[in-house]
């Protein structure tokens, strides 16, 4: 599958601050999470891609078109949901979204009709006729999404879309993203520092820190090697059971209720761990009441990557 977005050596500096440092990317179609701590350069990367800022060096292509010379063509096919509230306060949601449609090239009639459709889609009912300055943060974010969607773009750039939302608003927003990606086939580049958001919506992952790409790829693949942990609950001699597993090369952590059995060093077939657990239980005469494989989540992966670079939040 060809890449939707590619960059090579993308660099952007603000004074003494190096926001992007030779970023090389290959972003496939689908939902991609752009993860990174605050100040990692996520927003700068998105703004560079869609032409809101001009990179100091490097090249980039979206839909196979060069971002520096074919920005207008690219921007006909993308939607951008900015991080900050960028809406015109003395417009109603319908006016704002319709205006965004006009600026995307829609006729006035089509823009107004489409504005109603997308506002309805994001859950704005009668309140869509009120001025935006009267809206809550959640409503503003919905309008923000609607203006990005009004012209039905192929690719959506979502910059911190759930920041500032209450739990219910966040769930609604993520559900919309997931629907757009999985049901409507749109590609997303979701920039956030909230790991569960990426985990819920995205299939692919880019980790950015200090303006550099630390990791990119399929999320399932990235987490596949992190399955060497099994949680066990037993009845019987816990010390003997731990010693038996130690003897088979496992690291055992016992909190008095659950015993965490970890195979250190490289990939391990979970079935092998289960076999060793059963054999150790048999050898020590304990009864296994519960055994479950646990996976390391994105947070584990992210923290490992960041800590390796000495970067913490």
């Amino acid at each position: 599958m060809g890449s939707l977005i590619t960059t090579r050596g993308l660099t952007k500096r603000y004074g003494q601050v190096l926001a992007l440092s030779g970023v090389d990317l290959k972003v496939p179609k689908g939902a991609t999470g752009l993860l990174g701590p605050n100040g990692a350069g996520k927003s700068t990367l998105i703004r560079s891609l869609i032409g809101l800022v001009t990179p100091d060096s490097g090249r980039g292509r979206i839909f196979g078109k060069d971002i520096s010379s074919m920005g207008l063509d690219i921007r006909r096919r993308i939607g951008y949901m900015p991080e900050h509230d960028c809406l015109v306060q003395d417009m109603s949601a319908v006016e704002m979204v319709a205006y965004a449609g006009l600026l995307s090239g829609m006729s006035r009639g089509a823009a107004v009709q489409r504005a109603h459709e997308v506002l309805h889609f994001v859950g704005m009912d009668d309140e869509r006729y009120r001025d935006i300055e009267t809206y809550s943060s959640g409503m503003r974010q919905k309008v923000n999404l609607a203006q990005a969607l009004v012209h039905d773009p192929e690719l959506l750039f979502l910059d911190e879309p759930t920041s500032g939302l209450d739990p219910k608003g966040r769930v609604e927003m993520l559900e919309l993203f997931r629907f757009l990606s999985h049901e409507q086939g749109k590609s997303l580049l979701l920039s956030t520092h909230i790991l569960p958001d990426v985990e819920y919506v995205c299939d692919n992952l880019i980790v950015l820190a200090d303006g550099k790409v630390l990791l990119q790829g399929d999320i399932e693949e990235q987490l596949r090697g992190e399955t060497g942990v099994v949680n066990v609950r037993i009845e019987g001699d816990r010390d003997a059971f731990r010693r038996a597993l130690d003897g088979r090369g496992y690291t055992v952590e016992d909190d008095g209720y659950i015993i965490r059995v970890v195979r250190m060093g490289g990939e391990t077939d979970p079935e092998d761990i289960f076999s060793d657990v059963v054999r150790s239980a048999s050898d020590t005469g304990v009864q296994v009441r519960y055994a479950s494989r646990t996976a390391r989540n994105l947070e584990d992966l992210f923290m490992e990557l960041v800590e390796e670079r000495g970067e913490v939040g």
Partner: protein
Amino acid sequence: MTRALDPRGGKESRIYTDRYTPWKGELGERHWIVLRAINDGFRHNLRNKWVKAIIALAWVFTVVFPLLTASFGMNQLIQDADSAARYENYEEYLSELDEYGIGYRMVKNIEPDSMATFDVWVSNTGERPDIIHVYIADIRADQPGWGVWLNLPGSMNATGELNFSLPAGEMANFNLSVAAPPGLITGYADVIIGAESEGASSLVSLFGGETGVSKGLATRTIVGQTEASPYHFTITALQPVGSVRAGDSITIDHVIENTGTEADIYNVFTTGLPDGWRSSVDGTGDGAIDLEPGESLNFSVTFRVPDDSISTNYVSVLGLSTMDPSLTSGSVMIIKVTDIPDVDLTAEIIAGPNTGLASSLFMLFTLFLAAIAGSKAIAMDLAQRSYTVYFARPIGKMDYVAIKYGTVGATLSMVTILPLLCAYLGLILLSSVGGQYLMDHAWVWGAIVLHGLLIIIVLTSLSLAFSSLTTRRFTAAFGLVVAYFMTFVMASIIVNVFGEAGGTAVSIYDSVQLAGAGIFGVEGVDFDYSWGYNVLTLLSISAISTLAVLWKVSRTELSE
């Protein structure tokens, strides 16, 4: 992979994923985007309550009120012209009376050594109160020694002149006494009573027993003719004063009455027509009017006015008696050709004291609208970071600037070009100058648009420049207003203190006024100074402001 959250398991979420429909339409090109965005921004501006209020006030003061006053003023203008023309042509009028022998409205036959008393009325037929000065204008007699004086009824005070203070529409009575010289057996005296309006704007009518249209009244007193002629008749114009546009025709109804004691046949014709004028008499059958004593007949006279006629004209209808060839009667009409000179109509709109593009009130409305609509245009985008949303669309920064210029310019046109075009059209309709005038003065439409565009360009550029330099709309608006008045004060100092007329070139207001006067070619301003410099000033301000806007917008980046 374990899901980090389960959106379906918690509170009910109000989302409508089943309601999303992909859009299948086509997206337009950039020029359409710009035009549509201008239209949308313009409509958005018009929904602002302050914008609506200013536009409404501007239309009241620059269209409705001027139309009402100009309408009144034009009617007055026509009346004044009539009065002035009559006064100027008074001698000509009198000579016409002599030449055609008409207008001897009042004739009295007296015995030798006796006196004739004419009962005369003076009427203020104008629309304003007036003081009317009545006097004996001329005495012509075949013998010397006639005594002539004026007096009020019942008064023994004889005088050569009388003054009457009359409200509009009121009249007053006085007497003209004519005494024959002692011992005169036969003879006559023609006495003409003159009248002048102090206001010089009211139409004065003098008449004595018969309807008169003149500013003067002629009388004839005859001594020695004791037996009245059996033949006598009168011709009266029912609308003795009329107006007509050049190239059109006017019809005036008349009545001819046999006031003698014998039947008579009359021939009626027009006389005294200016060059190019044509006339026709209708309602007289084969041309000869046969009337019994006391009988009357209505007929009409149509005058066709050539295209190039421009002035007030006197025309006469003359009747001749068949039975007594020396007997004549007739009417004199004053016909105003209402082709208002160019300078008057354009000046009324453009350079009038409180109307038109150059008026201070008009400029204030435009300035305040620019302060509201223009000053927020970019400042609010900067403050709200709305340009982030705009520039993520298929438009460039030049497109953005064009949209802002178009939006503010279209809004300002609501208080500049549009009302002025309407005011001009309204004035033309009210003045009844007709379609030919529209054709002949097509350049005025272009001048209105040109001058309006000049104002729009300079105020749009300036307001957007201030707007691009701040994120506070009120700061931008304040800057615009201060710049406007500051340049005015500076120009006033240069002109009044240093006596340099060229100082007006530093003032936006003066430059707009003088450029307007220059474009329309009217003498409506006090400065004797080339307006080309003022146009240069306005264009320079616009260019510098536009460069400032382009510079600011081009370097705007999202660096947060």
